[in-house]
């Protein structure tokens, strides 16, 4: 159990004290309030506070004098001053007198929450004298990062090593292998764990939006920008930014990324103020970045920036019995979500899962089991419940002889279509594309149903 932080709020206005108290109680802090400097001093003599919020303008002894007095008692006291716009200059003076920071009234809740959290985090980290994990067994894993296979143990060991540092990490692996889970594990085991892990799916956003997503925008930066918006790099301050599908970003964004990773500084779109942010970068891709560099699609300098430490995630078929551990996990998850009493798999289903090629990796397994739980009406999942039609062909998955993406796409579409007996809706669903796209591809590759 973590210890509760204790705050003292000093303000002469009753409604302000009550509002702030209610607001901070939701953070789980212990709160004392005082209506003037004298009352604050009386409380201070009897209690220890982790942080004091102090209105600068009060009748009687001013907040400033109280600040000086408190700092005499305890030079380490963290004191944040609340001031009206008019007295910013006196707030600056307060900083010289040892205040941790000051905020102006009316207070932006975002600012208040950050100033207070940052101050307390700093203090708590110092108090905890944070012990980083000393052995691999101790690393915290996201609940669904599962597996005991030698290849995964190697991955855990790398996570353990790199999470103690601030090094940039590049996670490589086929789609569906769980790269985002590795990013999360690194974050959770680092000293940045109390700050956010901000994920950007670079592939999902068009370039025009990606820029303002990453760097934010100022009010009025473009039509409809009614309000300033912080970007992902700014949100990741103190924490980690996870750039997924990094291989898909345009040249222009590559240049900007390189700059922000090197300088940790950027401007919001339409802005002129330089914003600093302290973030750690984790990137991931299922593409061969080296090839993209060779063909000129990915900047070499950015590649080297990102590829300081890399973690390669194995495909599911190389993870031995992990497939069964994962299957059990997903079975448990979906059967309890759907309120079904399905306890296990029958032998045939297990054998199948062990032998199957799993081109879509863990994600494919998850989807397969979700569907199986939906259709299963017994207490065990059987082979028939698993969503694979031409099971016989599956084991003898022939190695791919073609090299070009197009040839492989053609072959794959052909296979899915024949497995589904050319049912277009079903095939499109399995291929995760819409029907129009599938029709276009059938036309493009001249595919035909041969009875």
């Amino acid at each position, binding site marked *: 159990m973590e210890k509760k932080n204790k705050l003292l709020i000093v303000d002469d206005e009753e409604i302000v004290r009550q*509002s702030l108290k209610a607001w901070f109680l939701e953070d789980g802090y212990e709160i004392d309030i005082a209506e003037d400097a004298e009352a604050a001093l009386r409380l201070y003599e009897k209690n220890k506070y982790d942080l004091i919020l102090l209105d600068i303008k009060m009748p009687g002894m001013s907040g400033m004098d109280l600040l000086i007095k408190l700092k005499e008692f305890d030079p380490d006291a963290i004191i944040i001053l609340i001031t009206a716009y008019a007295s910013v200059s006196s707030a600056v003076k307060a900083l010289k007198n040892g205040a941790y920071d000051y905020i102006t009234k009316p207070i932006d809740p975002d600012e*208040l929450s950050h100033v207070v959290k940052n101050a307390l985090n700093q203090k708590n980290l110092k108090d905890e004298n944070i012990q980083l994990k000393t052995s691999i067994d101790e690393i915290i894993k996201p*609940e669904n990062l599962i597996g005991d296979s030698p290849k995964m143990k190697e991955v855990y060991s790398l996570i353990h090593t790199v999470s103690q540092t601030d090094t940039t990490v590049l996670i490589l692996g086929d789609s569906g292998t769980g790269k985002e889970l590795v990013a999360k594990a690194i974050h959770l085991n680092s000293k940045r764990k109390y700050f956010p892990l901000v994920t950007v799916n670079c592939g999902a956003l068009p370039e025009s939006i990606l820029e303002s997503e990453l760097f934010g925008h100022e009010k009025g930066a473009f039509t409809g920008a009614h309000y300033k918006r912080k970007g992902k790099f700014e949100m990741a301050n103190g924490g980690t930014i996870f750039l997924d599908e990094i291989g898909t970003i345009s040249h222009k964004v590559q240049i900007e990324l390189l700059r922000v990773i090197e300088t940790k500084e950027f401007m919001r779109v339409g802005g002129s103020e330089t914003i600093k942010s302290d973030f750690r970068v984790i990137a991931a891709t299922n593409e061969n970045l080296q090839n993209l560099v060779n063909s000129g699609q990915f900047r070499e300098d950015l590649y080297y920036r990102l590829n300081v430490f890399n973690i390669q995630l194995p495909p599911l078929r190389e993870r031995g019995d992990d497939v069964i551990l994962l299957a059990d996990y997903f079975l448990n998850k979906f059967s309890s979500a759907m309120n079904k009493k399905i306890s296990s798999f029958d032998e045939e289903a297990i054998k199948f899962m062990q032998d199957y090629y799993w081109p879509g990796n863990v994600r494919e397994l998850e989807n397969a089991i979700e569907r199986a739980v939906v259709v299963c009406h017994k207490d065990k999942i059987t082979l028939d419940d698993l969503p694979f039609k031409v099971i016989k062909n599956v084991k003898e998955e022939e190695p791919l002889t073609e090299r070009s993406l197009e040839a492989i796409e053609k072959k794959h579409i052909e296979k899915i279509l024949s497995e589904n007996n050319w049912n277009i809706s079903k095939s499109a669903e399995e291929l995760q594309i819409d029907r129009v796209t599938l029709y276009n591809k059938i036309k493009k590759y001249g595919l035909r149903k041969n009875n």
Partner: protein
Amino acid sequence: MTPVILAPINIDNHFLLDEIIPELEYISKIKFIIKPLNIDISKAFSEERGQYHSTIILKLMLENLNEENSKVVGIVKNDLFIPVLTYVFGEAQLDGKCSLVSLFRLHEEFYSGNSDKNLLKQRTIKEILHELGHNFGLIHCKDWECVMHSSSSIEEVDIKGIKYCKSCIQIINKKLKS
């Protein structure tokens, strides 16, 4: 189990709430019903700020409700504040009966000018579950994937998770059983 009441306050058209109920129930495993509440909230309006004082609306809700045991999440279109703060997304009675969520700052139009219905739904779900969590006595959670993480800006609403984490849901379940 008594369902949680979603109470659109002075909102005629609550199709948004109808649409999110299945997801709310799926995530929380709690039953929700909609029961519109028409009350005069002009007392809570501040001329000076052009916003409504959320604590006063919470009081008005309490005075106008007769359901005995259920939690009630009020939903308003209006912009909310508490004194000293420039705005709040909502407010809840910690370990209490009522909470309040404002849709005003959850609309994407407010920020970028583009309407985004799906985003509005996600944000509304998060804020309802969050304030409701406070009603069940939950305080803010350290886990960014948990809907009980504090979020004082829209960016934080967007990056935090939409579900309760394991330990938060446990606390809720315990409360529901007792």
